[in-house]
Structure formats: C-alpha cells, structure tokens
C-alpha cells in the first residue's frame, strides 16, 4: 500500500509513526517495525522520501543492528535486512565520510555476529554496497578482504557464498568500468576503476582455488545446484575477465599440481580452474599452454574414471574452442592435424552419460562456430556425415531429455549446418527429409499426457529451429537453393500443422522458419499465403507473448520483400492489425519500433497502393516522431529505446517515400514533408542521435528530395539539418554514413536547383 500511496503523498504520517515505534521496549514491536521499514524501502522509490526521513530511517536501522546497544538478535537480524533494502536511500549519507564510516563499521561488525542469519544478511548488505557504492569502498577494502577470506574458509555455506559473491560483484563493476574505458567514449566513465581485483589478486586467487576443492559428489546431476565450489569457479572466471593475463601465472601451479592427482576432486578442480581462466587473458598468453594441455584434455575426456572430471573436461574443451579458435583468433589452437583427433573424442563422448554427452555436444558447437566464416576449406568437411549421424543418434537416445542433452545435440547440429559450404551442402540437404519426418511424427502424435506434451513441444521447437537454420543456409548457397525448393511445399505443409500447438516457443520457432522460407522462396511464396494468412494475423494479435508478435512483424517484412505487390490482397488486414497494435497500451513497447519499420516495408512493396493507408499511418508516425524527438533521455535504456523508435519512424518515411517514387500520386505526400523535416531538425538539435538514426535520417532527407523534387526544394533549403547534418556526415569515419550523406546531398542539390 505504501508503494502506491507514498509517491502521491497520501500517507505522510506512515514513516514517522513507524519510527516512533522504534523506541518501544517490546522486542517484537521493534522487530516488526524494522521489518515493515525494510518492506517500505523495498517498494518505494528513494526520491519519494525526503532526506530528513531517510536520515531517521537509517539511524533507526543502524542502531537496531548495533550489537553493543541492541541485545535481541531478532531485532538485529530485522535491522540488517532492513538496511539491505534501505541502501538505495543512502546516497547522500554515503557521501558523508563520518556517516559512511559508521554504516560500514556496523555492517562489518554484523558479519562477525554469532548468529549465522545475521552474518549472511550482513554479507548481503556488503554485496549490495559493492555495486551501489563501488567508488566509496577504497578505505574499507583491506578489512573486507580479511572478513571475506575468513568467511569463505571457515563459515557456513550460505555465508561463504555471499562472501564470494562480494568479489564477483566487484568484478562485475570493474569489468563494466574497464569496458567503458575501452569503448569509444574513453574517459567518459563516471566512476573511476580502483583496480581492487588487481590489488587483491595474489591473495584472492589462492582463496578461490581452495573453494574449487569443495565440490559436492553429485552436483552435475542437480540442475539447481549452487555451492562454494561453483560460486568460487564463477568468481575465478570473472577475475580472469577483469585482470586478463595477470591471472595465468597464479593459477598454473595449482593446475599443474592437481591435474593428475589420484583424488578426483583435485583433478576436477584443476580442470575447472583451467576452464575458468580461458576468457580474459590474451590468446597469445594462453595458446602455448592450451597447445600442451589439449592432448591431456582429450585423453581425460576419453579415459578419466570420474564423470564429474569428464564433464568439466568437456566443458573446458568447449571453452578452448570458444575463445582460442575461430576467425577472430590470429592463430587457432585447432589445426588440420588435431581436428580429426578432437572430433573422434567428442563424437565418442556423445555416447557417455547424459551430462558428459551434453558437454561434448556443447564443445562441438563451439568447434563448428570457429569455422562459420571459413569458406570451403573447413577441416570439418570430411566428417560432416559422421557428425550428423552421431548427433541424430544422440537426439534419439532414450535419456535424451535428461540434462538438456537433446537440446544441445540439435544446437550443435544447427551450428554444423551454419558452417556448411558448397561442398557439404548436399549432406545438409539429406538432413531435410530426416528432420521433416521427425516433425511429422510430432504433429501426428495424439493423446499425450501433459508431461509427454511438454516434451513434444520442446522437440517441435527444436525441429522448427533446425529447419529454420537449414532453410537460411540452403537459401544462401546459390547452387543449393533450387534443389532445396523441391522440399518447400512439404516443409510449409508441416509448419502450418505445427501452428495447431498451443505453445508460444513452438509458434515463434515455426514463424521464424516461415520467414526464412519466404525469403528463400521469393515470389513463389504467394501460393502459401491463403493458408498461412490466418496464422500471420494470429501472430500479430499475440500481445501476451510479445516475442511472437515481434517476430511476426519481422516476417511481414520478409513477406513484403519476397512477394512485393503480391502481398497487396493481405495488406488491409495486416495494416489494420499493425495500427491497432500501435494504439495499444498492452503491447510491449519493444514491438513498436519494428512496426513502424514494417510500414516502410509494406509501402516499398506496394508502392502508391499505400495511399489509402496514409491517412491512418501518417498521424501515427507524426505523433510518435514528436514524442521521440523531444524525449530527454534519463538513462541509457531509454536513450536506446528512443533511438530505436526514431529509426523505425525514419525507416517508415523512407519506405513510403521510395514506394511513391515516380508515381502520379506523389503529391499526396507533399503535405507531410514539413513535419518530416521538422522531426529531423529537432533530433539534430538534440544531439542524441546514434549512428543508425543518423544514417536513416540522411536517407530520409535524400528520399524526400528524390521523390518530391522541386515540391520540397524551398522547404529543404530552410531546414538546418539538411545542410549542417549532411556536411558533418560527409567527413564521418563510417563509410556508410559518408555514402548516405553524399547521396542525400546529390538528391537535395537536384531538388533545390530543379
């Protein structure tokens, strides 16, 4: 209730009356009051509460935590949990050294409480402080390090997990800051990096390595498992991403010492440590080590007696392929020579227990990904048949639904298809009837229990996803496109049947596959439209599962490009639905920019036939333009969304203008020109356009001049953006922006002079 009423200043006495309870002698009243204050802080925006009240809340909470004045551990626990929620209110207090010192001292003392729940809650506060007040932490880091070290080594698991989380959270902060440093806005990061992780490294890494030895026997069998070893490994991975090369010499001795030990825990911990540090350090630093380790890893995956070790080994191999192999890596650790051995071991491991087989599929996924841009010299080529055979075998294993195994096998299959080429396309083509048969069997299956239906839906989604990838690939290889099209009727027939399923993921996957098919089939897709249209409309109406709606909007674009004016008979229905979607408050906002872009696709496809929609579409575009041009972005998300919206609007204008080009109905657009120019002028004045918006805006300026010519010449001459924006963009780094600027200038010169 407070969450609703306080922002409207409708319950002003609430906090004061709660605070007056704090001086009650009765423990349960104090405890209840602190809990309520905590809940209020959790629900209410910090800006709603004035600083005086914040001060009094924090004083009450921190006093409640203080072990020297508060004897009841229930009250201290309630106070510590309340502080966790109240930290967001303490911005001002954290800028005051004395107040901050006091809060930090009380929190640190609470981490040493005799009550485990208080210790856990206090560490949770430290984690929250680490992300909210990173830049204020420097004076406390030495103490916090000692506290966390003790907790990780000696305390109970829930406390140790939070202590590790503190360091993971610091890594998150420093990774973000360092990313900012590296990005084009160098030096713009508001918070400086204090390099806490780099400084703590010599002591932090040994502590994390110790945690890796605390594995649970069956943690790989339990989906929701989370323990000290897992948290420690995750943190080690984050540390590696934060400090890069510096971590390698600190971890290598641990790996070398333990990787061959008789105790499986030591072998697993060493392997896990190795896998964890593969992202972050430079390939140059890691490659020599990986070259030595690769054979050892392959042998361990084949022969280690322990499943947990094999699981981690297969995962580590996957990480090696992910980070040290592929077009972006200068010298891949995979060569023509070792590729065959790697594949032999991976394919063999796919017959292992489900969790190991699943990791082997994952490793193959990354191995294949490295060859996606390879052209025709992929060393995988000779093995395509064997790979497909084994992956299909895995999907048919009786235990394929365990440990995500079937999903991993299909994902690996997709990735291998993605890296196919002219030479291997015929083998991919042979997959089509196999996948179609599987899909056929799923649509025919009847009278299923709800558990069986869930599994059936998962499988249908995977099969549609696989078809989508195959269609995309075969459509992109010129020599295979025509051979592929012989299957189009059957594929379409099956995909339409799949829509009978009530499952959102299945619908989305089928829709994506149909979009790919439309692009590949081109104008020939028209014959499927009478049957498909009802599902297209259904997708556009699906507000609840907005992902489906977004994908369907995208498919309308695919259809426009494939069918061109043959989409005309369906446009009344599509436009009605798209306009309804734009007017709806229920539809997720992320779908709205693509709907505007889709107007452009439709207009470009049907040309002057778009005229009858102008009276509806243009006012929508104008009011959205007005709104998005004047947005003062409060945060990055809002700025990104605003730019997406602007881009969608501009793409709509471009499509409409281009669609009307050379038509006798061009005049119909003249009344809108002034508003379009004003929109671009306002955005240009606001200086918050991203590159995509800039490029689209240049496009619209050119299209406006090109389509409307002398009708808009004088208007364009008066527009500030037409001159200044274009001049500015003519000397831009991005060649696409320069080209767009040149095109716009050419078109405008002609319009103005003509």
């Amino acid at each position, binding site marked *: 209730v407070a969450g609703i009423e306080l922002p409207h200043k409708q319950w002003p006495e609430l906090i004061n009356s709660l605070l007056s309870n704090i001086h009650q002698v009765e423990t349960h009243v104090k405890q209840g009051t602190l809990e309520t204050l905590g809940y209020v802080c959790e629900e209410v925006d910090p800006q709603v509460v004035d600083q005086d009240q914040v001060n009094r809340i924090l004083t009450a909470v921190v006093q409640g935590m203080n072990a020297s004045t508060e004897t009841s551990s229930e009250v201290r626990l309630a106070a510590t949990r309340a502080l966790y929620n109240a930290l967001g209110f303490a911005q001002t207090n954290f800028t005051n050294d004395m107040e901050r010192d006091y809060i930090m001292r009380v929190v640190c003392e609470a981490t040493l409480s005799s009550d485990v729940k208080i210790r856990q809650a206090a560490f949770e506060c430290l984690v929250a402080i680490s992300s909210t007040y990173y830049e204020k932490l420097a004076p406390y880091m030495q103490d916090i390090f000692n506290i966390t070290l003790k907790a990780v080594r000696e305390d109970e698991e829930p406390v140790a997990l939070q202590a590790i989380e503190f360091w993971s959270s610091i890594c998150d902060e420093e990774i973000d800051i360092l990313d900012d440093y590296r990005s084009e806005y160098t030096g713009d990061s508001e918070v400086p990096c204090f390099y806490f992780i780099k400084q703590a490294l010599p002591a932090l890494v040994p502590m994390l390595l110790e945690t890796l030895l605390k594995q649970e026997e069956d943690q790989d069998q339990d989906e929701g498992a989370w323990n000290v070893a897992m948290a420690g490994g995750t943190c080690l991975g984050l540390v590696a991403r934060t400090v890069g090369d510096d971590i390698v010499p600190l971890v290598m001795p641990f790996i070398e010492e333990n990787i061959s030990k008789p105790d499986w825990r030591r072998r697993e911990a060493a392997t896990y440590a190795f896998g964890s540090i593969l992202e972050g350090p430079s390939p140059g630093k890691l490659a020599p080590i990986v070259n030595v380790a690769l054979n050892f890893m392959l042998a361990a995956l084949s022969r280690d007696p322990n499943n947990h070790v094999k699981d*981690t080994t297969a995962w580590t191999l996957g990480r090696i392929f992910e980070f040290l192999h592929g077009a972006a890596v200068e010298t891949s650790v995979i060569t023509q020579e070792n590729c065959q051995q790697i594949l032999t071991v991976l394919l063999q491991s796919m017959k292992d227990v489900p969790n190991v087989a699943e990791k082997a599929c994952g490793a193959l996924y990354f191995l294949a990904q490295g060859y996606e841009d390879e052209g025709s010299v992929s060393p995988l080529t000779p093995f395509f048949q064997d790979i497909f055979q084994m992956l299909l075998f895995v999907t048919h294993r009786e235990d394929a639904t365990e440990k995500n195994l079937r999903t991993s096998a299909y994902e690996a299959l997709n990735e291998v298809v993605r890296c196919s080429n002219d030479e291997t396309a015929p083998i991919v083509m042979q997959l089509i009837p196999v996948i179609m048969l599987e899909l056929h069997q799923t649509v025919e299956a009847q009278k299923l229990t709800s558990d069986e239906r869930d599994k059936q839906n998962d499988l249908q989604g995977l099969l549609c996803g696989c078809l989508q990838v195959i269609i995309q690939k075969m459509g992109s290889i010129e020599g295979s496109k025509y051979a592929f099209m012989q299957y189009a009727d059957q594929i379409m027939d099956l995909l339409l049947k799949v829509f009978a399923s009530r499952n959102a993921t299945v619908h989305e996957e089928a829709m994506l596959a149909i979009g790919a098919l439309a692009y590949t089939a081109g104008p020939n897709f028209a014959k499927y439209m009478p049957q498909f249209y009802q599902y297209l409309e259904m997708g556009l109406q699906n507000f609840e599962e907005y992902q489906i709606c977004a994908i369907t909007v995208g498919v309308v674009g695919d259809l426009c490009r494939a069918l061109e004016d043959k989409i005309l008979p369906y446009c009344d229905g599509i436009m009605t639905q798209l306009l309804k979607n734009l007017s709806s408050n229920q539809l997720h906002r992320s779908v709205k920019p693509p709907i505007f872009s889709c107007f452009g696709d439709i207009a470009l496809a049907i040309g002057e036939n778009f005229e009858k929609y102008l009276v509806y579409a243009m006012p929508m575009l104008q009011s959205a333009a007005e709104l998005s041009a004047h947005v003062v972005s409060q945060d990055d998300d809002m700025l990104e969304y605003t730019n997406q919206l602007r881009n969608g609007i501009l793409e709509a204008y471009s499509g409409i203008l281009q669609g009307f080009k050379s038509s006798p109905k061009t005049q119909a657009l003249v009344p809108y020109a002034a508003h379009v120019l004003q929109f671009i002028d306002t955005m240009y004045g606001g200086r918050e356009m991203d590159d995509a918006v800039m490029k689209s805006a240049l496009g619209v300026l050119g299209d406006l001049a090109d389509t409307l010519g002398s009708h808009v010449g004088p208007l364009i001459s008066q527009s500030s953006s037409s001159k200044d924006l274009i001049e500015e963009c003519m000397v831009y780094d991005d060649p696409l922006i320069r080209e767009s600027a040149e095109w716009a200038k050419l*078109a405008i010169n002609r319009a103005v002079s003509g």
Partner: protein
Amino acid sequence: MAPPPEHRRPIKRAAISDQQRRREVALRLQADRRSDAQNRARQLASSVLSLGHEPETEPEVE
C-alpha cells in the same frame, strides 16, 4: 542450499541459447535486408540522378 544469484551465468552453460541466437540472427537479417532494399532503391535513383546531370554538363564539353 542457497540458490545461485539470478544474474550469475548458469554454471558451465553457454551465455546465450541457440534459440536466442536464432531470434537475434533473424532480426538482424531482416534489418539488413530492409536496408539493402532501401539502398537498392536509392542506387537506382542515384543512377537516374547522375544521368539527369549529363545534359547540364554536355554544353560545357561542347
């Protein structure tokens, strides 16, 4: 046992699923194809525009 913090990458799992990747690839391809279609229309217009300039330059040549 405490559950893992939600934002932590699930242990030993890929950062994004292939399904998410398929979705992103489809959206990217759609955006690229839209931009290609619009650029094609502009190239066509550019060639017409440059042709249109020819008569103006011809007298100078003569």
